[in-house]
């Protein structure tokens, strides 16, 4: 056998070669860093832009309105303040009159059309104010609101300056944005209804798609004999991931609504439809995760008499969980941001009351964002961005748990 001498690692050629490989290594590492930084900066850019526009959406401008109740044309008995009495008191009209006395003829343009609600709530909270003059903060009109916060029309800017001088203008956190639902006036709309809709929808989606997705992945990877039948299942699952989401909407429409007669616009149906869409993502990610569990672990467990079910649930699944959770995270993230299939099942709708359960009519955050982005009034621009911030916060919260679990389960062996 011919013998070769030890490689001369110190030779000039080898040195050069290694220098070149190191350069490649540095380039590669830099490329990795660059990719991470670039991806993250895209996200940062989007987030910063959205924050810039959206944070304003969480505040609103209010005018301190002096209301002389005894002098107002309001006919209400302080001792019998019921919802009905308030509804019949024609508060909108009264508010208009009161505003005119306080702010002059332009009052209509300065106050939000829903300003009367603040007055109603004030009366409800303390009926005794009906016998005196009270100062009540009411929301300003969209035009004034915009002018007070940033750029508005010249007339409104002038009004802002004047009202500021009078000391009646204030900008504060808009709690009603977090507690109210959809509406037609940007100063009055809230995100709660859509938020709750998303919550319920995602709950249904998760409850359905996670177990089914994991079960499918387990079946295919661990139990099914590898033959044409499993190939069919595998290919059709991969293919489902590529089916445009609106087609899932069509399917939901024909099966859940037309066939099963489930209620239209409901979180239940939305969740079921999105679950069909999310499931393939979980299956695909899950299968890959299961595949990457080393076979020696399975051998070890089988070798001491664990049943295949025990092997899977006690060894493979815990080790594959991080990957499964990744699939769940990205699948759910997509479901959370989806609008097209929900249109087909009636969730692209004006729904002014938050849903009480999964069968009540509901809309979801991305649909709300979509609807608001198409609104005429400019006041909705910042509300749209604010809603996007809420959606991202939702996304973060939803993923938080999964990410926590994933970090917990991740082991290298």
């Amino acid at each position, binding site marked *: 056998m011919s013998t070769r001498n030890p490689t001369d690692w110190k030779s000039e050629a080898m040195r050069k070669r290694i220098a070149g490989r190191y350069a490649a290594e540095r380039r590669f590492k830099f490329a990795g860093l660059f990719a991470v930084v670039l991806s993250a900066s895209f996200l940062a850019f989007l987030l910063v832009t959205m924050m810039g526009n959206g944070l304003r959406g969480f505040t609103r401008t209010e005018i301190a309105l002096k209301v002389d109740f005894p002098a107002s044309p309001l006919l209400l008995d302080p001792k019998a303040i019921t919802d009905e009495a308030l509804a019949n008191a024609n508060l909108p009209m009264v508010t208009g009159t009161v505003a005119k006395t306080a702010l002059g003829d332009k009052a209509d343009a300065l106050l939000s059309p829903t300003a009367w609600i603040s007055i109603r709530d004030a009366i409800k909270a303390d009926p005794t104010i009906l016998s005196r003059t009270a100062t009540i903060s009411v929301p300003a009109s969209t035009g004034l609101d915009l002018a007070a916060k940033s750029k508005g029309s010249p007339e409104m800017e002038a009004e802002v300056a004047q009202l500021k001088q009078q000391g009646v203008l204030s900008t504060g956190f808009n709690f009603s944005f977090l507690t109210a639902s959809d509406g037609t006036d940007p100063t009055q709309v809230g995100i709660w209804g859509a938020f709750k809709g998303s919550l319920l929808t995602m709950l249904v989606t998760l409850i359905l798609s996670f177990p089914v997705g994991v079960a499918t992945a387990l079946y295919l990877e661990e139990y099914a004999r590898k033959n044409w039948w499993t190939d069919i299942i595998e290919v059709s699952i991969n293919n489902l991931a590529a089916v445009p989401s609106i087609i899932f909407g069509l399917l939901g429409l024909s099966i859940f609504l037309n066939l099963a*007669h489930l209620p239209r616009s409901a979180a239940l149906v939305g969740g079921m439809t999105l679950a069909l869409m999310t499931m393939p993502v979980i299956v695909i990610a899950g299968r890959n995760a299961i595949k990457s569990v080393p076979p020696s672990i399975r051998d070890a467990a089988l070798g001491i008499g664990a049943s295949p079910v025990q092997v899977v649930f006690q060894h493979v699944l815990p080790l594959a969980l991080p990957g499964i959770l990744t699939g769940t995270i990205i699948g759910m993230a997509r479901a959370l941001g989806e609008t097209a299939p929900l249109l087909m099942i009636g969730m692209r709708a004006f729904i002014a009351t938050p849903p009480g359960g999964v069968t009540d009519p509901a809309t979801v955050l991305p649909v709300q964002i979509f609807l608001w982005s198409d609104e005429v009034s400019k006041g909705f621009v910042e509300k749209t961005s604010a809603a996007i911030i809420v959606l991202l916060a939702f996304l973060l919260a939803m993923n938080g748990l999964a990410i926590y679990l994933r970090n917990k389960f991740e082991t290298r062996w």
Partner: protein
Amino acid sequence: ACGDQSGGGAGATRDQIRAVGSSTVYPFATAVAELFVQGNAGMKSPIIESTGTGGGMKLFCAGVGAQHPDIADASRRMKKAEFEQCAANGVKDIIEIQIGVDGLAFAESKQGPGLKLTPKIVYEALAANPYGKGPNKAQTWKDVDPSLPAIAISVFGPPSTSGTRDSLAELILEKGCQSDEAMKALKEKNEDEYKATCTRVREDGKYVDSGENDNLIVQKLGANPNAVGVFGYSFLEENKDTLKDVPINGVEATYETVSTGQYPGARPLYIYVKKAHMTAIPGLQGFLNTFAANWNPDGALTKRGMVAAPEDVRKKSAETVKALTVLDGSQLK
């Protein structure tokens, strides 16, 4: 033993009003819904879906019953085919109510060249095959009309799948097309060819299909000062600070000109109601009344950017609401 919200049984019901249809009518319908709840304590808020006129009609005509909507919003009149489909599915008595008018506005950026257009110019600039004389070769507005500046034609407008595009074709393009006598004659002779010649829009990038999001067109105009946008009048109104009107036939799109129909791009808006639902769905009559109370020039309709219908139309509509007169399908096209 369990809950029976499945609605599968014979006793399915609904205590909310449901309306579906046009995205153009949507803002007004939502405003009415809001007012309806405010005025009727205890009523659940009606659900207004924005599906587009055609999509809404499809749902509306699918049948009578709790799982089908009560109202269809429309930015055009119901088509004969739709009426027949309704009838086939048992939706026999339909109430048609015109609720107002919308303007199809032409606008450009404040920095724009200040174009002045006519239906004829628009037609010649945008038609795929002007007057059937071969593909449109016009590159700039000057190519169409020498009085216009030599600026490349670029129009952002509704996509071919939308109802608004139908309006563009009907209200502007056909009118421009008919300035040619031969075309008028063609209409009598060969309706199909006439339609193709008069309403088909060029597809070489001069006309840009822009989706259903009008705010996006508004923003794109800001970025393209030489482009013209076509969208709902309300968006022009709201964005007067960045946009300016492009007059058609010398008429600017204003509230008055649209309302009186003087502005060429005005189109009526409707709602359609199932009579069979009037007795079954609580509050439906009240909802219609709220519509009627708000379609006046100082009502919610105009606050939401639409234009009130002329007085006689409003009166007729109000009567329809009261008497629930059903639509006679034979007048439909």
